[in-house]
Protein backbone atom coordinates (compact mmCIF):
# COMPACT_ATOMS: atom_id res chain seq x y z
CA UNK A 1 0.00 0.00 0.00
CA UNK A 2 1.39 3.34 -1.05
CA UNK A 3 1.46 5.95 1.71
CA UNK A 4 -0.70 8.96 0.77
CA UNK A 5 0.79 12.35 -0.14
CA UNK A 6 0.90 15.26 2.29
CA UNK A 7 0.74 18.18 -0.10
CA UNK A 8 -0.42 19.21 -3.54
CA UNK A 9 1.29 21.89 -5.59
CA UNK A 10 -1.31 23.36 -7.94
CA UNK A 11 0.40 25.33 -10.68
CA UNK A 12 -2.67 27.23 -11.76
CA UNK A 13 -1.10 29.11 -14.65
CA UNK A 14 2.22 29.88 -16.27
CA UNK A 15 1.24 33.50 -16.84
CA UNK A 16 3.41 35.84 -14.76
CA UNK A 17 4.33 39.51 -15.01
CA UNK A 18 7.82 38.74 -13.66
CA UNK A 19 10.58 37.15 -15.75
CA UNK A 20 12.94 35.68 -13.15
CA UNK A 21 15.82 33.88 -14.86
CA UNK A 22 15.69 31.03 -12.31
CA UNK A 23 11.97 30.34 -12.68
CA UNK A 24 11.09 26.76 -11.74
CA UNK A 25 8.51 26.47 -14.52
CA UNK A 26 9.40 24.30 -17.49
CA UNK A 27 11.03 26.09 -20.41
CA UNK A 28 8.05 25.14 -22.60
CA UNK A 29 5.37 27.28 -20.93
CA UNK A 30 1.68 26.41 -21.09
CA UNK A 31 -0.55 28.82 -23.03
CA UNK A 32 -3.52 30.39 -21.19
CA UNK A 33 -6.01 28.59 -23.45
CA UNK A 34 -4.70 25.20 -22.29
CA UNK A 35 -5.29 25.89 -18.58
CA UNK A 36 -7.72 23.80 -16.52
CA UNK A 37 -11.02 25.50 -15.74
CA UNK A 38 -12.43 26.37 -12.31
CA UNK A 39 -14.60 23.27 -12.00
CA UNK A 40 -11.76 20.89 -12.83
CA UNK A 41 -9.40 22.50 -10.35
CA UNK A 42 -12.10 22.41 -7.67
CA UNK A 43 -12.62 18.69 -8.28
CA UNK A 44 -8.85 18.13 -8.06
CA UNK A 45 -8.74 19.90 -4.67
CA UNK A 46 -11.46 17.61 -3.27
CA UNK A 47 -9.63 14.57 -4.68
CA UNK A 48 -6.41 15.75 -3.04
CA UNK A 49 -8.03 16.08 0.37
CA UNK A 50 -9.71 12.66 0.00
CA UNK A 51 -6.37 11.13 -0.94
CA UNK A 52 -4.77 12.45 2.25
CA UNK A 53 -3.23 15.79 1.29
CA UNK A 54 -3.27 18.25 4.18
CA UNK A 55 -1.82 21.27 2.43
CA UNK A 56 -2.19 22.92 -0.93
CA UNK A 57 0.17 25.39 -2.51
CA UNK A 58 -1.52 27.58 -5.09
CA UNK A 59 1.29 28.59 -7.36
CA UNK A 60 2.16 29.33 -10.96
CA UNK A 61 3.39 31.37 -12.75
CA UNK A 62 1.50 33.99 -10.84
CA UNK A 63 -1.62 32.33 -9.42
CA UNK A 64 -3.47 35.62 -8.99
CA UNK A 65 -3.31 36.09 -12.76
CA UNK A 66 -6.25 33.65 -12.72
CA UNK A 67 -9.53 35.60 -12.72
CA UNK A 68 -11.10 32.83 -10.65
CA UNK A 69 -8.46 32.88 -7.90
CA UNK A 70 -11.09 33.75 -5.30
CA UNK A 71 -13.21 30.73 -6.27
CA UNK A 72 -10.14 28.51 -6.30
CA UNK A 73 -9.05 29.60 -2.81
CA UNK A 74 -12.58 29.01 -1.55
CA UNK A 75 -12.69 25.58 -3.18
CA UNK A 76 -9.34 24.56 -1.67
CA UNK A 77 -10.27 25.80 1.79
CA UNK A 78 -13.72 24.17 1.66
CA UNK A 79 -12.04 20.89 0.72
CA UNK A 80 -10.28 21.14 4.10
CA UNK A 81 -6.81 21.89 2.77
CA UNK A 82 -4.41 24.31 4.48
CA UNK A 83 -4.28 26.85 1.70
CA UNK A 84 -1.05 28.62 0.85
CA UNK A 85 -0.75 31.25 -1.88
CA UNK A 86 2.68 31.47 -3.50
CA UNK A 87 2.76 34.87 -5.16
CA UNK A 88 4.87 37.68 -6.54
CA UNK A 89 2.38 40.08 -4.95
CA UNK A 90 2.38 42.55 -7.82
CA UNK A 91 -1.18 41.95 -9.05
CA UNK A 92 -3.20 42.12 -5.82
CA UNK A 93 -4.68 45.15 -4.07
CA UNK A 94 -5.96 45.28 -0.49
CA UNK A 95 -9.61 44.68 -1.38
CA UNK A 96 -8.83 41.55 -3.34
CA UNK A 97 -6.47 40.25 -0.66
CA UNK A 98 -9.13 40.75 2.03
CA UNK A 99 -11.54 38.78 -0.14
CA UNK A 100 -8.99 35.95 -0.41
CA UNK A 101 -8.59 35.93 3.38
CA UNK A 102 -12.36 35.73 3.77
CA UNK A 103 -12.47 32.89 1.25
CA UNK A 104 -10.28 30.88 3.63
CA UNK A 105 -6.70 31.61 2.62
CA UNK A 106 -4.40 30.40 5.43
CA UNK A 107 -1.00 31.75 4.45
CA UNK A 108 0.83 33.92 1.94
CA UNK A 109 4.30 33.26 0.59
CA UNK A 110 5.72 36.31 -1.13
CA UNK A 111 8.81 36.17 -3.33
CA UNK A 112 11.50 38.84 -3.23
CA UNK A 113 14.35 39.06 -5.71
CA UNK A 114 16.77 41.11 -3.60
CA UNK A 115 16.80 43.65 -0.75
CA UNK A 116 18.05 46.43 -3.02
CA UNK A 117 15.24 47.76 -5.29
CA UNK A 118 17.22 48.37 -8.50
CA UNK A 119 18.82 44.96 -8.38
CA UNK A 120 15.54 43.28 -7.39
CA UNK A 121 13.72 44.82 -10.35
CA UNK A 122 16.52 43.83 -12.71
CA UNK A 123 16.54 40.21 -11.51
CA UNK A 124 12.75 39.93 -11.71
CA UNK A 125 12.72 41.67 -15.06
CA UNK A 126 9.86 43.89 -13.86
CA UNK A 127 10.32 47.60 -13.19
CA UNK A 128 8.74 48.81 -9.95
CA UNK A 129 8.12 45.25 -8.78
CA UNK A 130 10.09 45.50 -5.55
CA UNK A 131 8.16 48.55 -4.30
CA UNK A 132 4.87 46.79 -5.10
CA UNK A 133 6.01 43.74 -3.14
CA UNK A 134 6.81 45.82 -0.05
CA UNK A 135 3.37 47.44 -0.22
CA UNK A 136 1.77 44.03 -0.68
CA UNK A 137 3.60 42.59 2.35
CA UNK A 138 2.04 45.31 4.51
CA UNK A 139 -1.40 44.43 3.13
CA UNK A 140 -0.85 40.78 4.05
CA UNK A 141 -0.06 41.49 7.68
CA UNK A 142 -2.86 44.10 7.87
CA UNK A 143 -5.27 41.42 6.66
CA UNK A 144 -4.12 39.29 9.61
CA UNK A 145 -2.57 36.66 7.36
CA UNK A 146 0.74 34.99 8.20
CA UNK A 147 3.53 35.93 5.81
CA UNK A 148 6.53 34.00 4.56
CA UNK A 149 9.15 35.76 2.49
CA UNK A 150 10.82 33.60 -0.13
CA UNK A 151 14.23 34.77 -1.24
CA UNK A 152 15.87 32.83 -4.04
CA UNK A 153 19.57 33.51 -3.64
CA UNK A 154 22.48 33.37 -6.08
CA UNK A 155 25.73 35.10 -6.96
CA UNK A 156 24.06 38.39 -7.88
CA UNK A 157 22.15 38.95 -4.61
CA UNK A 158 23.76 36.72 -2.00
CA UNK A 159 25.97 39.45 -0.57
CA UNK A 160 22.80 41.23 0.58
CA UNK A 161 21.40 38.26 2.52
CA UNK A 162 21.72 40.13 5.86
CA UNK A 163 19.60 42.95 4.39
CA UNK A 164 17.02 40.38 3.18
CA UNK A 165 16.78 39.00 6.71
CA UNK A 166 16.31 42.55 8.05
CA UNK A 167 13.61 43.09 5.43
CA UNK A 168 11.75 39.94 6.54
CA UNK A 169 11.75 41.21 10.13
CA UNK A 170 10.73 44.72 9.11
CA UNK A 171 7.81 43.39 7.04
CA UNK A 172 6.57 41.22 9.90
CA UNK A 173 7.20 37.88 8.20
CA UNK A 174 7.12 34.91 10.57
CA UNK A 175 9.17 32.84 8.22
CA UNK A 176 11.89 33.35 5.66
CA UNK A 177 12.89 30.84 3.03
CA UNK A 178 16.44 31.30 1.83
CA UNK A 179 16.60 29.07 -1.20
CA UNK A 180 19.69 28.67 -3.31
CA UNK A 181 18.77 28.37 -6.97
CA UNK A 182 18.09 24.82 -8.14
CA UNK A 183 19.51 24.39 -11.60
CA UNK A 184 16.89 22.96 -13.92
CA UNK A 185 14.97 24.53 -16.78
CA UNK A 186 15.40 28.30 -16.92
CA UNK A 187 17.90 28.31 -14.07
CA UNK A 188 20.09 25.76 -15.82
CA UNK A 189 20.20 28.03 -18.86
CA UNK A 190 21.30 30.88 -16.56
CA UNK A 191 23.57 28.79 -14.38
CA UNK A 192 26.79 30.61 -15.22
CA UNK A 193 25.29 33.98 -14.26
CA UNK A 194 23.72 32.72 -11.03
CA UNK A 195 26.16 30.24 -9.46
CA UNK A 196 27.48 31.57 -6.14
CA UNK A 197 31.10 31.38 -5.15
CA UNK A 198 32.26 29.11 -2.34
CA UNK A 199 33.04 32.19 -0.22
CA UNK A 200 29.52 33.55 -0.75
CA UNK A 201 28.00 30.22 0.18
CA UNK A 202 30.03 29.92 3.38
CA UNK A 203 29.17 33.48 4.38
CA UNK A 204 25.47 32.84 3.69
CA UNK A 205 25.43 29.67 5.76
CA UNK A 206 27.08 31.48 8.66
CA UNK A 207 24.65 34.40 8.31
CA UNK A 208 21.64 32.06 8.43
CA UNK A 209 22.96 30.19 11.45
CA UNK A 210 23.63 33.40 13.38
CA UNK A 211 20.25 34.91 12.43
CA UNK A 212 18.40 31.77 13.55
CA UNK A 213 19.88 32.20 17.01
CA UNK A 214 19.37 35.96 17.17
CA UNK A 215 15.75 35.85 15.99
CA UNK A 216 14.73 32.59 17.65
CA UNK A 217 11.00 32.58 18.36
CA UNK A 218 10.44 35.55 16.04
CA UNK A 219 11.59 34.48 12.60
CA UNK A 220 11.89 30.90 11.36
CA UNK A 221 14.50 30.60 8.62
CA UNK A 222 14.38 27.66 6.22
CA UNK A 223 17.53 27.19 4.21
CA UNK A 224 17.85 25.26 0.96
CA UNK A 225 21.51 24.54 0.26
CA UNK A 226 22.97 24.43 -3.23
CA UNK A 227 23.63 21.05 -4.80
CA UNK A 228 26.74 22.13 -6.62
CA UNK A 229 28.76 22.43 -3.44
CA UNK A 230 27.27 19.32 -1.84
CA UNK A 231 28.80 15.91 -1.35
CA UNK A 232 25.46 14.18 -0.79
CA UNK A 233 22.26 14.88 -2.74
CA UNK A 234 19.15 16.44 -1.30
CA UNK A 235 16.15 14.25 -0.56
CA UNK A 236 14.27 15.69 -3.52
CA UNK A 237 10.52 15.93 -2.80
CA UNK A 238 11.14 13.54 0.10
CA UNK A 239 11.39 10.78 -2.50
CA UNK A 240 9.64 10.39 -5.86
CA UNK A 241 5.93 9.74 -5.34
CA UNK A 242 6.21 9.56 -1.57
CA UNK A 243 4.96 12.79 -0.02
CA UNK A 244 4.07 15.23 -2.72
CA UNK A 245 2.34 15.67 -6.04
CA UNK A 246 1.92 18.53 -8.45
CA UNK A 247 -0.61 19.37 -11.14
CA UNK A 248 0.53 21.50 -14.07
CA UNK A 249 -1.59 24.32 -15.56
CA UNK A 250 -2.72 21.99 -18.35
CA UNK A 251 -3.60 19.21 -15.90
CA UNK A 252 -0.63 16.85 -15.93
CA UNK A 253 -0.29 15.04 -12.59
CA UNK A 254 3.39 15.05 -11.66
CA UNK A 255 5.63 13.71 -8.88
CA UNK A 256 7.41 17.08 -8.90
CA UNK A 257 6.83 20.39 -10.65
CA UNK A 258 9.88 19.93 -12.89
CA UNK A 259 9.15 16.32 -13.89
CA UNK A 260 7.72 17.30 -17.26
CA UNK A 261 11.31 17.98 -18.36
CA UNK A 262 11.94 14.22 -18.24
CA UNK A 263 11.52 12.35 -21.53
CA UNK A 264 9.80 9.00 -21.95
CA UNK A 265 6.98 9.62 -19.48
CA UNK A 266 3.24 9.55 -19.94
CA UNK A 267 2.12 11.64 -16.98
CA UNK A 268 -1.54 11.11 -16.03
CA UNK A 269 -4.03 13.78 -17.18
CA UNK A 270 -6.17 15.17 -14.36
CA UNK A 271 -8.99 15.73 -16.84
CA UNK A 272 -9.40 11.97 -17.26
CA UNK A 273 -7.55 10.38 -14.31
CA UNK A 274 -8.21 10.80 -10.60
CA UNK A 275 -5.36 11.87 -8.32
CA UNK A 276 -5.75 8.59 -6.45
CA UNK A 277 -5.35 6.49 -9.60
CA UNK A 278 -2.35 8.59 -10.64
CA UNK A 279 -0.76 8.33 -7.20
CA UNK A 280 -1.37 4.65 -6.57
CA UNK A 281 -1.36 3.02 -9.97
CA UNK A 282 0.36 5.08 -12.65
CA UNK A 283 3.62 3.91 -14.15
CA UNK A 284 4.97 7.47 -13.91
CA UNK A 285 4.59 7.64 -10.12
CA UNK A 286 5.82 4.09 -9.61
CA UNK A 287 8.88 4.31 -11.83
CA UNK A 288 11.24 5.91 -9.30
CA UNK A 289 9.31 5.16 -6.14
CA UNK A 290 11.21 3.43 -3.34
CA UNK A 291 14.66 1.93 -3.91
CA UNK A 292 14.11 -0.90 -6.42
CA UNK A 293 14.87 1.28 -9.47
CA UNK A 294 18.18 2.52 -8.11
CA UNK A 295 21.48 2.02 -9.92
CA UNK A 296 24.86 1.61 -8.30
CA UNK A 297 26.07 3.32 -6.12
CA UNK A 298 22.61 4.07 -4.63
CA UNK A 299 21.64 0.38 -4.54
CA UNK A 300 22.56 -0.85 -1.09
CA UNK A 301 23.78 2.58 0.06
CA UNK A 302 23.10 3.28 3.73
CA UNK A 303 21.59 6.62 2.70
CA UNK A 304 19.29 5.19 0.01
CA UNK A 305 16.20 5.77 2.13
CA UNK A 306 17.41 9.16 3.35
CA UNK A 307 18.06 10.93 0.07
CA UNK A 308 16.22 8.50 -2.28
CA UNK A 309 18.96 8.87 -4.88
CA UNK A 310 18.57 12.65 -5.03
CA UNK A 311 16.84 14.52 -7.81
CA UNK A 312 15.69 12.80 -11.02
CA UNK A 313 15.46 16.06 -12.94
CA UNK A 314 18.99 17.02 -12.01
CA UNK A 315 20.24 13.54 -12.91
CA UNK A 316 18.65 13.90 -16.35
CA UNK A 317 19.73 17.50 -16.87
CA UNK A 318 23.38 16.70 -16.14
CA UNK A 319 23.83 13.12 -17.35
CA UNK A 320 21.02 12.64 -19.88
CA UNK A 321 19.73 9.69 -17.80
CA UNK A 322 16.85 10.30 -15.38
CA UNK A 323 17.59 6.96 -13.65
CA UNK A 324 21.21 7.87 -12.82
CA UNK A 325 22.44 8.72 -9.34
CA UNK A 326 22.10 12.47 -8.77
CA UNK A 327 25.55 13.91 -9.67
CA UNK A 328 25.35 16.00 -6.47
CA UNK A 329 26.43 12.81 -4.71
CA UNK A 330 30.21 12.43 -4.41
CA UNK A 331 29.71 8.72 -5.09
CA UNK A 332 28.19 9.45 -8.51
CA UNK A 333 30.50 8.70 -11.44
CA UNK A 334 29.34 12.09 -12.81
CA UNK A 335 30.12 14.15 -9.70
CA UNK A 336 33.00 15.92 -11.46
CA UNK A 337 30.44 17.64 -13.71
CA UNK A 338 29.56 19.92 -10.85
CA UNK A 339 33.12 21.09 -10.34
CA UNK A 340 33.37 21.79 -14.08
CA UNK A 341 30.19 23.86 -13.90
CA UNK A 342 31.61 25.84 -10.98
CA UNK A 343 34.77 26.54 -12.97
CA UNK A 344 32.76 27.69 -15.96
CA UNK A 345 30.67 30.06 -13.84
CA UNK A 346 33.85 31.59 -12.42
CA UNK A 347 34.63 33.07 -15.80
CA UNK A 348 31.07 34.03 -16.73
CA UNK A 349 29.27 37.36 -16.99
CA UNK A 350 26.10 38.55 -15.34
CA UNK A 351 23.66 38.61 -18.27
CA UNK A 352 20.37 36.69 -18.08
CA UNK A 353 18.11 34.79 -20.42
CA UNK A 354 14.82 35.99 -18.97
CA UNK A 355 11.87 33.64 -18.60
CA UNK A 356 9.41 34.54 -21.34
CA UNK A 357 6.73 32.56 -23.16
CA UNK A 358 7.88 31.29 -26.53
CA UNK A 359 11.49 32.04 -25.74
CA UNK A 360 13.08 28.66 -25.27
CA UNK A 361 16.56 29.05 -23.86
CA UNK A 362 19.43 27.16 -25.36
CA UNK A 363 19.85 24.14 -23.11
CA UNK A 364 23.10 24.28 -21.20
CA UNK A 365 25.43 21.73 -22.73
CA UNK A 366 26.03 18.55 -20.78
CA UNK A 367 29.69 18.95 -19.93
CA UNK A 368 31.97 16.10 -20.86
CA UNK A 369 33.77 14.28 -18.12
CA UNK A 370 37.29 15.60 -17.74
Amino acid at each position, binding site marked *: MTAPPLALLAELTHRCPLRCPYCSNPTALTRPGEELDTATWSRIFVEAADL*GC*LQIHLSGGEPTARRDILDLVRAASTA*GLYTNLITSGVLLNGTRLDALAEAGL*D*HVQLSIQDAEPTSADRIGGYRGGHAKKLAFAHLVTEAGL*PLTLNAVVHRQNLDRLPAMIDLALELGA*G*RLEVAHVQYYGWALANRDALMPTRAQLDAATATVEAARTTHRGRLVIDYVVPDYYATRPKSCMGGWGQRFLAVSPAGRILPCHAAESLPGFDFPDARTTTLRAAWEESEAFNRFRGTGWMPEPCQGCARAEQDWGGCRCQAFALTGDAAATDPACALSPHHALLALALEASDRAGEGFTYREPGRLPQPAPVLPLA
Partner: protein
Amino acid sequence: MSPETVPKLARGMKLREDKTRAQWVVLGPERMFVPDEIALEIIRLLDGTSSLAAIADALAARYSAPREEILADITTLLDDLAAKGVVTA
Protein backbone atom coordinates in the same frame (compact mmCIF):
# COMPACT_ATOMS: atom_id res chain seq x y z
CA MET B 1 7.76 31.63 29.20
CA SER B 2 6.68 32.43 32.72
CA PRO B 3 3.59 31.24 34.66
CA GLU B 4 1.80 34.48 33.70
CA THR B 5 2.39 33.99 29.97
CA VAL B 6 -0.74 33.40 27.90
CA PRO B 7 0.43 31.13 25.08
CA LYS B 8 -1.54 30.61 21.87
CA LEU B 9 -1.06 28.96 18.51
CA ALA B 10 1.07 31.23 16.34
CA ARG B 11 -0.52 33.06 13.45
CA GLY B 12 -1.08 30.63 10.61
CA MET B 13 -0.91 27.51 12.80
CA LYS B 14 -4.06 25.40 12.77
CA LEU B 15 -4.95 22.25 14.65
CA ARG B 16 -6.74 19.88 12.28
CA GLU B 17 -7.85 16.27 12.31
CA ASP B 18 -6.01 14.16 9.74
CA LYS B 19 -8.62 11.49 9.11
CA THR B 20 -6.54 9.66 6.51
CA ARG B 21 -3.82 8.93 9.09
CA ALA B 22 -6.07 8.87 12.17
CA GLN B 23 -4.19 11.60 14.00
CA TRP B 24 -4.27 15.29 14.85
CA VAL B 25 -1.81 17.66 13.21
CA VAL B 26 -0.77 21.26 13.61
CA LEU B 27 -0.52 22.73 10.13
CA GLY B 28 1.53 25.80 9.37
CA PRO B 29 3.22 27.42 6.41
CA GLU B 30 4.90 24.56 4.52
CA ARG B 31 5.22 22.55 7.67
CA MET B 32 3.29 20.30 9.97
CA PHE B 33 3.74 18.91 13.43
CA VAL B 34 2.24 15.75 14.79
CA PRO B 35 1.88 16.44 18.50
CA ASP B 36 2.16 13.51 20.87
CA GLU B 37 -0.71 12.84 23.24
CA ILE B 38 0.56 15.20 25.92
CA ALA B 39 1.37 18.03 23.51
CA LEU B 40 -2.04 17.62 21.86
CA GLU B 41 -3.80 17.94 25.19
CA ILE B 42 -1.87 21.10 26.02
CA ILE B 43 -2.42 22.63 22.57
CA ARG B 44 -6.16 22.07 23.01
CA LEU B 45 -6.00 24.10 26.22
CA LEU B 46 -4.48 27.11 24.43
CA ASP B 47 -7.60 29.26 24.27
CA GLY B 48 -5.85 32.61 24.12
CA THR B 49 -6.95 33.58 27.66
CA SER B 50 -5.51 30.88 29.95
CA SER B 51 -2.06 31.50 31.41
CA LEU B 52 0.54 28.78 31.83
CA ALA B 53 -0.30 28.77 35.55
CA ALA B 54 -4.00 28.24 34.81
CA ILE B 55 -3.23 25.43 32.38
CA ALA B 56 -1.02 23.77 34.99
CA ASP B 57 -3.85 24.09 37.54
CA ALA B 58 -6.30 22.42 35.16
CA LEU B 59 -3.95 19.55 34.36
CA ALA B 60 -2.98 19.06 38.03
CA ALA B 61 -6.65 18.78 38.95
CA ARG B 62 -7.43 16.47 36.05
CA TYR B 63 -4.62 14.03 36.84
CA SER B 64 -4.21 14.58 40.58
CA ALA B 65 -0.55 15.23 39.82
CA PRO B 66 1.97 17.62 41.44
CA ARG B 67 1.26 21.09 40.02
CA GLU B 68 4.86 22.38 40.14
CA GLU B 69 6.10 19.38 38.18
CA ILE B 70 3.40 19.88 35.55
CA LEU B 71 4.16 23.60 35.28
CA ALA B 72 7.84 22.84 34.71
CA ASP B 73 7.02 20.20 32.08
CA ILE B 74 4.58 22.32 30.10
CA THR B 75 6.91 25.32 30.25
CA THR B 76 9.63 23.22 28.62
CA LEU B 77 7.23 21.87 26.03
CA LEU B 78 5.80 25.27 25.13
CA ASP B 79 9.25 26.88 25.00
CA ASP B 80 10.18 24.22 22.48
CA LEU B 81 7.02 24.81 20.41
CA ALA B 82 7.65 28.56 20.57
CA ALA B 83 11.16 28.08 19.20
CA LYS B 84 9.66 26.12 16.34
CA GLY B 85 7.20 28.93 15.68
CA VAL B 86 4.14 26.82 16.57
CA VAL B 87 3.03 28.88 19.58
CA THR B 88 3.59 32.46 20.67
CA ALA B 89 3.33 34.16 24.01
